[in-house]
């Protein structure tokens, strides 16, 4: 009954009933424990995504507690996420159960990921996502799982589903997306294509001393096109999926707003091809998933104004990676045993004879068990990783071998709807190819960056007839050792990567989800979270930055979304706040940049035509108070802007 109540609140648009293969697999054994909603991690639902009209995946992830987004602005601009101050490279992203490795930079650009096809985005630091996911995801500092429309099966009674939408917005924004999947019986085939574009010439206002500098962002145009297809089949006790995605992006890189000099004309072209397949088989007491994927990522960077003898830079980077693995699980009365292996092979070739030609083989092994007994759940795992590096153009980095533990103890109290969890994990992230080999900057003697995380969390679900409430809170302590930082080692213009940092994070977060059925027509939803992260530099006692807040990490981050629904019409107000930050580790006034709050408002209405056709119109005003703000110093973000969208869904 409570479950139904919960679902009822997910209005007004479409309630999708697809489940992906992975989530079909029985994760949890029947026990009292399992009935308490699992809400210690943070998930952004499709309703959230639709109603807030995000620009890209970065806009979605910033709503997750503990996420710290670095955004360099504009559609398609670089956006990375660091969870709980670990650093962006500690997060592994997976789409529909396939990891998305980015070995060149170590960080996926969330700004280049479109959102129209997304069903949910879930982030977790506590290894709670799913033990059928690739091992690389289960041994990372934090993981983000994205589920898409095109790669999930239809509900049993449906044979066809269609999604289409068009968006029009400020600064020449024009988006289109069309997807369909057809599932006659056991076989499913899906096709999708989408495109986003913007001129990106937005006006800005930036403080320059005691004056206000106003201008228009130039060289900020963006155009992408992506398409893909999935062929899948689901049988009684097995399923198979095979798919392909491709993305082409052309964009200008506007750079920082440099006072008195607006001559940037750097360009970036990205070309990404991704093929993937998996096979899953399951029974009463076991499941096995085998997966393989390949990714070709090509970047072409051009800077015609670079003042070298050749009269500019034009460099092409080709990053290829192939990965394959298997995860298996065995269920008994009180135990789930899980384990897996994964192998990633990746290389980078650059059409610059000075650049290294690195090849990496990264091998993962994982063994673990979940023990269930009454109200106790204990999960433990040990993983091993072996990384072997080669460089076909110069010295290579040494091989690495690590064993890393994870332990979690959960205590659930059914009647009081209370749940406690304490967990510890030790993970590491490998230095990226750029950090190891990038011309003068790279340092092939770099060690992996180690992270230790300890967390205590509590989740409360009080039961009320009209109000569905979830309250969650965590206190955590993280320590990052051998942190990779850049320091000048040859001259001021040649910085090099060194393992010299130690960072300690003292954190706290709190989240509230409330869904309130005011009358049978009126409903209201509140989701709010707050994160406190005191992230201190403990590198060197004699340094002026000792125990100072680390650059670009806000002490306070908060989200508050409030939505009202009347029948099929809704209004949603989204607020995002981050406090002031420092642009360098030294906490002096010159390095301070202001905190900001951004408020977006959406109004939407759904028309139902017959049983299965849904037409939705939505208008969103972003940054309604026209605040001038920046995540990164001098990368000023747009003021008030709008986005209107029309979408159609069949099934």
């Amino acid at each position, binding site marked *: 009954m409570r479950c139904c109540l919960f679902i009822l609140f997910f209005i007004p648009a479409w309630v999708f009933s697809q489940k992906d293969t992975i989530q079909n697999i029985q994760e949890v054994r029947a026990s009292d424990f399992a009935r308490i909603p699992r809400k210690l991690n943070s998930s952004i639902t499709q309703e959230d995504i639709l109603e807030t009209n995000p620009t890209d995946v970065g806009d979605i992830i910033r709503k997750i507690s503990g996420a710290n987004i670095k955004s360099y602005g504009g559609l398609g601009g670089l956006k990375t996420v660091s969870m709980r101050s670990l650093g962006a490279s500690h997060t592994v992203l997976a789409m529909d159960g396939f990891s998305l490795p980015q070995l060149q930079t170590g960080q996926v650009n969330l700004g280049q990921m479109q959102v129209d096809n997304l069903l949910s985005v879930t982030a977790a630091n506590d290894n709670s996502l799913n033990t059928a996911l690739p091992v690389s995801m289960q041994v990372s500092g934090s993981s983000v799982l994205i589920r898409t429309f095109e790669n999930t099966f239809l509900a049993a009674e449906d044979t066809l589903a269609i999604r289409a939408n068009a968006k029009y917005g400020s600064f020449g924004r024009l988006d289109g997306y069309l997807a369909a999947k057809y599932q006659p019986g056991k076989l499913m085939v899906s096709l999708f294509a989408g495109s986003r574009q913007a001129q990106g010439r937005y006006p800005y206002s930036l403080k320059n*001393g005691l004056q206000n500098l106003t201008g228009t962002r130039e060289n900020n145009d963006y155009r992408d096109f992506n398409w893909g297809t999935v062929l899948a089949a689901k049988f009684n006790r097995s399923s198979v999926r095979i798919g392909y995605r491709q993305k082409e992006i052309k964009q200008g890189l506007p750079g920082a707003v440099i006072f008195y*000099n607006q001559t940037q004309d750097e360009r970036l072209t990205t070309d990404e091809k991704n093929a993937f397949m998996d096979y899953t088989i399951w029974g009463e007491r076991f499941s096995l998933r085998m997966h393989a994927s390949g990714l070709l990522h090509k970047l072409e960077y051009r800077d015609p104004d670079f003042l070298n003898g050749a009269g500019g830079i034009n460099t092409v980077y080709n990053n290829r990676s192939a990965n394959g693995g298997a995860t298996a699980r065995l269920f008994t009365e009180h135990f789930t045993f899980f384990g897996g292996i994964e192998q990633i092979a990746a290389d980078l070739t650059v059409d610059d004879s000075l650049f290294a030609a690195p090849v990496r083989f990264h091998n993962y092994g994982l063994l673990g068990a979940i023990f269930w007994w009454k109200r106790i759940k204990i999960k433990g795992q040990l993983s091993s990783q072996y990384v072997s590096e080669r460089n076909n153009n110069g010295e290579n980095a040494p091989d690495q071998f690590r064993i890393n533990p994870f332990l979690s103890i959960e205590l659930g109290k059914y009647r009081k709807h209370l749940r406690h969890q304490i967990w510890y994990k030790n993970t590491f992230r490998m230095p990226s190819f750029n950090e190891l080999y990038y011309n003068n900057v790279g340092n092939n003697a770099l060690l992996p960056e180690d992270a230790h995380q300890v967390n205590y969390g509590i989740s409360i679900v009080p039961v009320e007839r009209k109000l569905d409430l979830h309250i969650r809170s965590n206190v955590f302590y993280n320590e990052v050792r051998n942190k990779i930082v850049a320091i000048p080692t*040859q001259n001021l*213009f040649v910085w090099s990567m060194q393992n010299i940092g130690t960072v300690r994070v003292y954190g706290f977060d709190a989240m509230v989800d409330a869904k309130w059925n005011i009358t049978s027509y009126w409903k209201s939803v509140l989701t709010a979270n707050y994160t406190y992260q005191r992230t201190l530099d403990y590198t060197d006692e004699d340094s002026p930055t000792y125990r100072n807040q680390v650059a670009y990490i806000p002490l306070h981050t908060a989200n508050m979304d409030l939505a009202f629904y009347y029948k099929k019409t809704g209004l949603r107000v989204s607020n995002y706040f981050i406090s002031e930050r420092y642009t360098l580790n030294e906490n002096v006034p010159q390095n301070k940049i202001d905190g900001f709050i951004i*408020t977006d408002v959406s109004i939407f209405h759904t028309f139902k035509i017959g049983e299965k056709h849904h037409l939705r119109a939505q208008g969103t005003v972003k940054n309604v108070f026209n605040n001038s703000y920046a995540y990164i110093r001098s990368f000023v973000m747009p003021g008030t802007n709008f986005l209107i969208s029309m979408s159609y869904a069949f099934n």
Partner: protein
Amino acid sequence: MRLISAVFIIVLLFSCKKEEPMLCVDETLNSGMAVLCEGLFQQNNSSISWVDFSDNSVTNELFVAKTGRQLGDTGNDMKRYGGKVYVAVNISSTIEVLDANSFTSVKQIEMIDGGTAKQPRSIAFYGTNVYVACFDGYVDVIDTTSLNVLQRIQVGTNPEDLAVSNGKLYVSNSGGLNGPVMDSTVSVIDLTTHTELQKIVVGLNPGEIQVDQGGDVYVITRGNYGSIPSRMKRINTQLDVLEEEFSFDVSGISPMNDKFLVSYYDYSTTQSSVGLFNPQSETLENASYLDVSPVNTLYGVHYDIGKNKIFLLDAMGFTNTGYVREYDVLGSYIISYHVGLNPTEILVYD
């Protein structure tokens, strides 16, 4: 609806901003020094600090206080000529011309050529002209009265520094953006005809350039930060030939009366030294003339004749705010002033 009000109250709370501190600097500058701080690339945080010698206090935003706006990105050089101060701001690509007494803005010269930033790097003076080495491979000639760019003289790649001797301008062509195949030449320009007479090959990656009282030009060739070390070379300006290479480690030259303070900072070991060089006898008189132990990252050396003091510029690892460390001429450490990020040039006011 109460919830909506609550949202807006929170919005208002978050929107409240603290008041800006007032910047107080005297109308006319005296008994102190202006310190140009480069800041860091792409951060728009170049600044000028003012050190007041009467109470040793430091105001970090002299330029903002005087002009109401920021200096911009990467101020590389600041020199006084006549009644004006000229500041070369590299990434913002401007020459800021200030009144030397009040430090108020006279003109901001935009250094953009056909949509490409010229990136001014360093400044020298001769007659009624200012000469600006621009990273795009030219020396710009600016008239000190009209403050207009009169002419662009093509030199080598990424010119770094300038010196005037014997009616000629010597320009070190670093080719620093061309690495690892950097430039190795010094361009010689006739200051009457404004034409390049020749390029003298001096060694890989020429940087700082200075003139001694006899008119010889000394240039540092910084090498490749590896197998080719950083060295000082001497050019005979009568013949315009490279005459001598010195064998000690050196990365900077600053004149002190008739001698040079020669400084060295080793980026890989972070060790530094300041020695005393005699350009008459062409000998290094003292390899460690100053005790540099108070200095963390030596980023510049400056001797002021009026105050008769030596100032060492300490960049504190380049990502922390820096210090100016004052010494007497005999090498005794006196006092430190906490200034902005990456201090690079000093102008002393008596």
